[in-house]
């Protein structure tokens, strides 16, 4: 059980990575680079990859994630060792009245794949959502062919709640979209908090 007399220290810093604001001055280039990688794109986006210039990449992110929007929170994921940008993690469509939000994550820097960095970013975002924003649940959707991600989400405590059959069409066949969710009580129990 956690010591309830102490806060958890830096809420946005883990062992290998930390979460920072989305500074598009610095993030446009890595976003642009990741967009050239069709494998990554087809794991994070359900629309077809569209060739955006560096300027277009920057504009679309600035417009898509306005800083004054109270219902979206976008973090860059940075490696602790050199502060470089390796991905993003976000909350979108936060419903403050119902305490629910969707979340998304992408680790675009492939040298960081399979090292647990995504898992660590997830854990930080979950703690932020449940202990700082005090949300009641988090939702996400993931493509059925992304088994690695589904496995990781399950390790973080997400449960499969539904399957939208034949949701999208890629490589000549249709694929399901998997919906997952986690409740605050489930997360607290998994992470050693006293469950009220």
């Amino acid at each position: 059980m956690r010591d309830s007399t102490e806060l958890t220290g830096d809420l946005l810093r883990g062992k290998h990575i930390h979460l920072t604001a989305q500074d598009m001055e610095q993030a446009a280039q890595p976003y642009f680079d990741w967009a050239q990688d069709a494998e990554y794109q087809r794991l994070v986006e359900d629309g077809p990859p569209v060739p955006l210039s560096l300027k277009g990449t920057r504009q679309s992110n600035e417009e898509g994630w306005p800083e004054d929007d109270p219902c979206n929170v976008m973090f860059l994921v940075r490696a602790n060792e050199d502060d470089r940008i390796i991905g993003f993690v976000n909350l979108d469509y936060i419903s403050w009245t119902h305490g629910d939000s969707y979340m998304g994550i992408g680790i675009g820097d492939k040298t960081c794949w399979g090292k647990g960095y995504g898992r660590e970013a997830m854990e930080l975002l979950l703690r932020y959502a449940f202990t700082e924003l005090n949300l009641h649940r988090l939702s996400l959707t993931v493509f059925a062919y992304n088994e690695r991600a589904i496995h990781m989400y399950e390790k973080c405590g997400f449960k499969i709640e539904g399957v939208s059959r034949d949701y999208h069409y890629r490589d000549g066949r249709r694929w399901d979209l998997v919906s997952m969710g986690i409740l605050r009580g489930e997360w607290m129990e998994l992470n050693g908090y006293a469950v009220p």
Partner: protein
Amino acid sequence: MNDDPTADLLRGRLVRLSASSPEDISRLFVGWIHNSEYWRLMSNGPPFPWTQEGVRKHIEKEAEKEDLRNVFFAVRTLQEDRIIGEIGLDGISYARGESYVGVGIGEAEYWGKGYGTDAMNVILRYAFTELNLHRVSLTVFEYNPRAIRSYEKCGFRMEGRAREAFQREGRRWDMLHLGVLREEWQAHHA
């Protein structure tokens, strides 16, 4: 299904789907949402005192886009030619062949009489035979069994349940996810 491409695609047994002026639909909408029962069946946002002017501006802004990502119709009765609700496809993805659908019959005297089901059947025909989509999705609150029955009559199947997705009247409720595939819809209407 219609075999005749010149038949009226947007006409059902009880209703037809039509355009409407921002002026008309904003006036009607503001009237409908005075009934908080309607609002809480239709939206998970808190009832909000929208003004007609605010709604009209919002509709006009949406209408300017005309990019066929969102298609909204007024639902009109065939008998009196009266607008009783609205229905729309939103977030259409042509690459995926998929869209969400939403329907609301704002005039409470028309509830439970098959008008919403008829409007849904018409828009599914539009989605599957004119836009050539592969699937249509929707979400519905677990406390709305009348809507769920209507959707199942149109061919939708239960695909998932987001547990405790929202809170009303002091308890949490699930959000249900339903979907229908084109071949299921075709078999359903054969």
